[in-house]
């Protein structure tokens, strides 16, 4: 009964943050659709940033909230953070400024999420190694100091993209197993959907979010 593509036991909410132009939307797109679209903006419509992955034999639906990247909205995008199980913090290895802003992003994330939220640092555009502005070692040190996981990735080539998302999920799943993450707290960003032992009584809902109107 858990074989269907829409059967999963958990939903994890991710947010993806960082300065504008670092490649957040591209990373998301690469992860969900395994595609890189150079200068084309990315859809958040239809299945809106979701993909089902498998961690330790458990199907997990990742739901990634892309945020508006414009600087002017920086101050108001705080409500995105609420209830995120994972936060992907992205900078552009070819632009130092994006790296320098990381501390403020980190502060926001720490303030606006719960302690169990897993924060993953991604140095994007690793394919542009020639224009590198931030060394791997420097960023790695920053990550270690702040207890973040870290990879350099490329939304263009897809290198390490999958890993970043999967590692985050693994870490979250671990916290659940450890009991560090309270599934019942709405802020946890994790929704548990216990697998059904019997056959489903109700027909699968035609639309997940049916409403009264």
């Amino acid at each position: 009964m858990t074989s269907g593509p829409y059967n999963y036991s958990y939903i994890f909410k991710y947010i993806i943050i960082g300065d504008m132009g670092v490649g957040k939307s591209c990373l998301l797109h690469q992860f969900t659709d395994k595609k890189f679209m150079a200068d084309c903006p990315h859809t958040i419509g239809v299945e809106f940033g979701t993909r089902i992955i498998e961690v330790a034999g458990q199907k997990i639906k990742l739901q990634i909230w892309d945020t508006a990247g414009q600087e002017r909205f920086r101050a108001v995008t705080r409500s995105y953070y609420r209830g995120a199980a994972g936060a992907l913090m992205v900078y552009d290895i070819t632009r130092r400024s994006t790296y320098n802003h990381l501390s403020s992003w980190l502060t926001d994330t720490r303030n606006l999420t719960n302690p169990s939220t897993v924060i993953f640092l991604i140095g994007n555009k690793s394919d542009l190694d020639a224009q590198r502005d931030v060394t791997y070692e420097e960023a790695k040190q920053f990550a270690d100091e702040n207890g973040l996981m870290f990879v350099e990735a490329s939304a263009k080539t897809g290198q390490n993209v999958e890993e970043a998302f999967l590692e985050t999920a693994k870490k979250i799943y671990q916290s659940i197993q450890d009991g560090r993450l309270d599934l019942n707290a709405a802020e946890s960003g994790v929704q548990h959907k216990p697998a059904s032992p019997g056959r489903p009584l109700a027909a699968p809902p035609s639309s997940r979010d049916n409403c009264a109107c």
Partner: protein
Amino acid sequence: MITSKMPSLRIDQNDLKCKNGCDYFGNPQWQGYCSKCHREQMQRQRKAEKASSFTSTLPRSDQRKSERGLKLSSHASFSKFEEKRLRQSETLKKTNLLKFNVFKKNITDDHEISTERRQPEFKIPTAVFEGMKADFRVRFPSFPPQIDRDARGFVHTFILDVIKWAAIMNVDELSERVQKQYQRFMKHMETSQHYASVDSDARELLIDFVEKHAMTYLHELPSIVFSPSGTDDERQDRAMSERIQQLSWVGEKHLECKLDRNNAECRRLLYKAISELLGMDAARWSGAKLARVRRCARHVLRLAAPAPASADDLLPALILAVLKANPPRLISNINYVTRFCNAQRLMTGEGGYYFTNLCCAVSFIQNMTAESLSMDKKEFDCYMAMPASIGGSAWAAALSLCGATREAEEQSALAAKLLEQTKEIQREAENMANNAATFEEQIAKKVQDVLAKTPLEIKPRRELPRLRREGVGSAPPPTTEPGPARTSEPPALLNEPSVVIDETEKLNILGFEVVEERSPSKSPQLDRLSDLKQSSSTELLTPSPMVLTPFDCRSLDEVLTPDEFPDNIPGLSDVNYDIDLSDFSADTSLAEDPPAPDRRRTFDPFAPQTSKDSYKLLESFDEFSIVDNARESDPYEVVHRPDPFGSVLDNDEGRASILDDSGSPTAACLLPSPIQPQNSAKPT
């Protein structure tokens, strides 16, 4: 049901004014509203009843339900309305609580329970559970009844719990408590064996179901979950609304969103998005509100088409939509969803994502500065100092244009539909005309067939002296003769007498007949009558339907005295009666002359008819007869048309009938005459 309770709750309001507090006067017929507010109220009620057959017996805070619907009228009228509403909101806020308590007291009175405690006396209207039952059957037809009962029981405790704690707790605590309730139900589903066979998707639907019904009811209660007492939600609503008015000058270029005001499609999408935003206030539970937001966001995302929209485009466009919509009670709505929506849903899912974007848009609007619009501080201040009515006219105009366009589209669609229907009707009419034509042909053919058979028998028996003199015997077969171009049956019958007559003489005779009809001179007529009486040709025709139809009264009037009236001849006496009434109206009042049971005067269509009578019919056939044909149901009717022979009757027969009008069966038969009451009422 709700509103009927209102009068007792109106404590200190001026009864003359509309209960909504608008400047118009109310009317008890409209439950104390002015006509406009009443109409709105009724619509709302109907909508609510349709949505779920709920009716709350608790007083709704109608004044606060200032839902503006989806109508996007001009911006100016919006703001005026909003202002008016907000002005009251402060006082209402206080009275709402009071009302609620008053109501509770009312219930105690009704049930004659004299107790100070509130909980036991508070009753959730059964309609809530009836609605739930029906909804359950629709949504989960295959679930065991135990789950249905379970869900209802849970909603019951949920509602009571919230109402109980709302008075004591602050909003955040209450919100937490509600969230705990959701979790409690989730746990219950996990542990109870009734739910063993229910998969997790269905469980989510169930918890939605529970939330929907509980919150829909609670939403209607004043100051419990929506703009709860102890919060300044309403004040914030007002502040927000005023702020949006102030910012009406903000356009697409300030927000750097790719919107083209001159593009009709773009306007249309924005208009739709705004409609959804405005509709959010009308939705009662968070799920429905979220659905509105989701639809709104989808329209907004399509604004960026043909390029697919990204998160970078969504927010600015959404901000613009909020600015142009100025949705009613925006902050209250957002807080309501944030606090009392099942948090799991809000954290995840598309609805949650878009709702979060809406929250961002709102907080952006609240904190908007020159910087955030990347414009000069001076310019910004200048815009802000400007009266709200000046700015934003371009978009307001564009959007109201959009509204008008949509209405026009609707109208034209309707017109097209009507046109289609007209065509359909026309087609049917043509069909019908064709049918009628063929029918006419058929009948004509039949009649001619009959005619072809009959004349041979008729001819020798005709003993009209005048006609015989002119050589009746040499008449040609009648089948070829073209009858007067009337309808099928009567003309054919009318033909018959003339068929008998020699072709050469026909015109003469016909001419004579016409004259006879118009001027009812007596003597030749009588002559002819007695002549024609002997004709057996008409006797042959008696079984034909024509004879069953009303006859002409003249023939009988002239031949019979009232004493001799044959009972089975309908309508005859009516003529007399009409005439009598004009002279002796007082005598014929209903009171003096009660209708005798109509035992004898039943009209027997198969009763033998005098030949004279039948012939008369043929002879005097005219357009009146056609009329009578149509109303077979009431053969008496015929006498009420203007009688060309009135003078005749007046002269010789009228008096006689007067004398016996009370005793004769005529009186009874005349009752259907519409003339009678008139005459008796006003003596002439």
